[in-house]
C-alpha cells in the first residue's frame, strides 16, 4: 500500500465534504432551469471554475500524460490549439453569444428552434451515443490511476470505479447543476493545487536538462516538431482546429456552462479566460508524461516507437507511467492532497458529463418522442424526475462499457473520435443555421448523418488512421449541409432566431 494514514484522512475528508455540500445544494433546485442550468445565474469567476473543472479530470491528466510520454513536446500542439481556439471563440462570441441569447438548455434544442423536432431527436440520439461512448472509458482509466497511486490491489478496480460513480451520482441526481457548480468550484481549487504540486515535484526530480535530452534522444526532431512527428502532421492539426471550434460551440457540457451564465457577455469572458487555463490543462500533464519517460522509459521500443516503461523491474503500459511516477515521487501528506485533487478532478468531470448526457437523453430524445406520440406536456417536477432516471441509466451504461470495452491505441484519439461522431454534423448544422441563410432541414439531416457515418465507419469498421477519420467526418458533414441545403427547399425564418439576431 502506497498510502499513509494521513493520506487516507485527507482523501476521506475531501470525499465526505464534497458529498455533503453537493447534497445540501438540493434545496436550491426549484424548477427544471435550476436543475439543468443553475437558474442562469453563473458569474465570471465561478463560471471559469466550473468550465475548467468540467474539462479537467483524472482522465485528462492520464491521456495527456500518455501523449506526452509517446510524443514529447510535439504533443503541446494539441494544448496550444485548444487554448487559442477557445480564446478566439470567447473574444468573438462565435456561436456561444447567439446560443446564450436563445436561452437554450441543451445543444440539440437548437435543432428544433432552427430545423425541426425530428432533427432534434436524431441529433439528440447521436449526441447521446457519442457522448456516452466518450465517457464510457473514463472510469476504467480513473480507476487505474487511483489503484496505482494508492497501491490498492488491482482486483479492487471494479469496487473503486463503482464507489466513485455512486458518490458522483448521489449529488448530481439530487442537486443537478447547482450541486455540480458548487462542487466544481471547490474541486477546481483542489485540482489546481494538485496540478501545481505534481508539476513542481516532477520537473524537480527529472531535471530540465534530462527532460530535453531524453526527448531528443528517443524521438529526435519528432519529439519537438509536430509536423515531423508521424502521429500528427497537417491533417491532425487541421482536424484539431475544427474539432476545438466544434467543442467550444457544441460540446454539451461546455455549452451548458455558456447557457448557465448570467448573460452573453459573461459567457464570452468565461470562454476567453478558460482558454488561457486550457493551455496549462494540456501542457502541464504532458510534461508529467515526459518526466515519467525520463524516469521509467528504459524498456524496449513498443509498437508505437516509444520505450516501454519499466517500474521496479516490471514493464507497464505508457498510460500507467505517470501515476507510477506520482506514487514514487510524493511523500505522505502531499500524496493525500494530490490524490484528493485528482479525485476532485474525476468527480467534477464525471458529474458534469452525467448531467450533460442525461439531459440530452431526457430533453432531446425521451420528451420530444413523448410529444410526437401525442402525450401532453410534463410539469417541471416530472421532467426533473426523468432527468434523474436518465442519470442513473447513463451511469449503469458507463460502468458496463468501462469494464468490457478493450481500449487499444491512444486514449486521446479514442476520445476525440467518439466526440467527432456528433460534433462534426452538429457544428456544421449550428454554424450553417446561425450564419448561412440558405441552410435548411435537408442540409441539417444530411450533415448530421454524413458526419456520424464519416466518423463511425472509417474508425470502428475500416480502422482508418484517426487523423483521416476526423478529417473525413468534418468534410462529409460540410458536404451534406451544402448539398442538402442547395437541393432542398429554403426554410422560413424562425421568430426566436430573428429575435436573437
Amino acid at each position, binding site marked *: 500500500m502506497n498510502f499513509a494514514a494521513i493520506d487516507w484522512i485527507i482523501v476521506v475528508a475531501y470525499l465526505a465534504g464534497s458529498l455533503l455540500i453537493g447534497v445540501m445544494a438540493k434545496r*436550491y433546485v*426549484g*424548477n427544471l432551469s*435550476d436543475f439543468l442550468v*443553475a*437558474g442562469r*445565474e*453563473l*458569474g*465570471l*469567476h*465561478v*463560471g*471559469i*471554475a466550473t468550465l475548467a473543472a468540467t474539462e479537467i479530470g483524472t482522465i485528462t491528466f492520464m491521456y495527456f500524460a500518455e501523449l506526452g510520454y509517446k510524443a514529447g*513536446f510535439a504533443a*503541446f500542439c494539441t*494544448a*496550444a490549439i485548444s*487554448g487559442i481556439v477557445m480564446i478566439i471563440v470567447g473574444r468573438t462570441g462565435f456561436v456561444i453569444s447567439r446560443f446564450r441569447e436563445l436561452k437554450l438548455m441543451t445543444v440539440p434544442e437548437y435543432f428544433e428552434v432552427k430545423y425541426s423536432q425530428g432533427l432534434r431527436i436524431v441529433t439528440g440520439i447521436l449526441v447521446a451515443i457519442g457522448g456516452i461512448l466518450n465517457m464510457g472509458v473514463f472510469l476504467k482509466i480513473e480507476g487505474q490511476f487511483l489503484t496505482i497511486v494508492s497501491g490498492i490491489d488491482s482486483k479492487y478496480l471494479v469496487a473503486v470505479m463503482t464507489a466513485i460513480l455512486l458518490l458522483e451520482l448521489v449529488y448530481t441526481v439530487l442537486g443537478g447543476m*447547482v450541486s455540480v*457548480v*458548487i462542487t466544481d*468550484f471547490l474541486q*477546481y*481549487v483542489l485540482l*489546481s*493545487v494538485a*496540478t*501545481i504540486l505534481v*508539476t513542481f515535484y516532477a520537473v524537480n526530480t527529472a531535471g530540465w536538462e534530462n527532460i*530535453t535530452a531524453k526527448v*531528443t534522444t528517443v524521438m529526435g*526532431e519528432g519529439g*519537438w*516538431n509536430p509536423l515531423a512527428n508521424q502521429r500528427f502532421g497537417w491533417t491532425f492539426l487541421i482536424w484539431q482546429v475544427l474539432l476545438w471550434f466544434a467543442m467550444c460551440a457544441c460540446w454539451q457540457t461546455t455549452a451548458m456552462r455558456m447557457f448557465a451564465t*448570467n448573460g452573453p457577455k459573461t459567457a464570452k469572458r468565461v470562454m476567453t*479566460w478558460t482558454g*488561457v*487555463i486550457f*493551455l*496549462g*490543462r494540456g*501542457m*502541464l500533464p504532458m*510534461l508529467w508524461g515526459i518526466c515519467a519517460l525520463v524516469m521509467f522509459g528504459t524498456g524496449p521500443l513498443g509498437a508505437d516507437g516509444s520505450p516501454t516503461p519499466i517500474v521496479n523491474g516490471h514493464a507497464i503500459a505508457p498510460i500507467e507511467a505517470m501515476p507510477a511516477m506520482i506514487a514514487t515521487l510524493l511523500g505522505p501528506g502531499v500524496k493525500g492532497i494530490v490524490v484528493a485533487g485528482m479525485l476532485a478532478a474525476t468527480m467534477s468531470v464525471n458529474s458534469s458529463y452525467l448531467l450533460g448526457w442525461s439531459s440530452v437523453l431526457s430533453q432531446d430524445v425521451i420528451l420530444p418522442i413523448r410529444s410526437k406520440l401525442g402525450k401532453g406536456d410534463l410539469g417541471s417536477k416530472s421532467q426533473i424526475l426523468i432527468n434523474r432516471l436518465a442519470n442513473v441509466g447513463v451511469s449503469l451504461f458507463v460502468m458496463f462499457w468501462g469494464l468490457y470495452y478493450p481500449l487499444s491505441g491512444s486514449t486521446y484519439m479514442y476520445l476525440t473520435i467518439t466526440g467527432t461522431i456528433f460534433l462534426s454534423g452538429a457544428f456544421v448544422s449550428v454554424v450553417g443555421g446561425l450564419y448561412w441563410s440558405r441552410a435548411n432541414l435537408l442540409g441539417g439531416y444530411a450533415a448530421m448523418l454524413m458526419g456520424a457515418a464519416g466518423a463511425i465507419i472509417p474508425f470502428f469498421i475500416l480502422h482508418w488512421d484517426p487523423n483521416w477519420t476526423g478529417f473525413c467526418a468534418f468534410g462529409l458533414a460540410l458536404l451534406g449541409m451544402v448539398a442538402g441545403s442547395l437541393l432542398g427547399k429554403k426554410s422560413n425564418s424562425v421568430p426566436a432566431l430573428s429575435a436573437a439576431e
Partner: protein
Amino acid sequence: MNGWQLFWTIWLLFSGAAFAIITLVVTLKGFGDVKRMLSGIKAHDKTSE
C-alpha cells in the same frame, strides 16, 4: 530543433504561470460568485411562485 525547443519552453512557462495566477484569482473571487448565484436562484424561485 533548437527553435522548437525555445518555442515550447516559452509556451510552457507562459501556460504554467497563467494557470497559477488565474487559479488564485478564481479562488479568491469565486466564493462571492457562488453566494450571488444561490441568492439569485432563491430570488428567481420566489418570483416564479
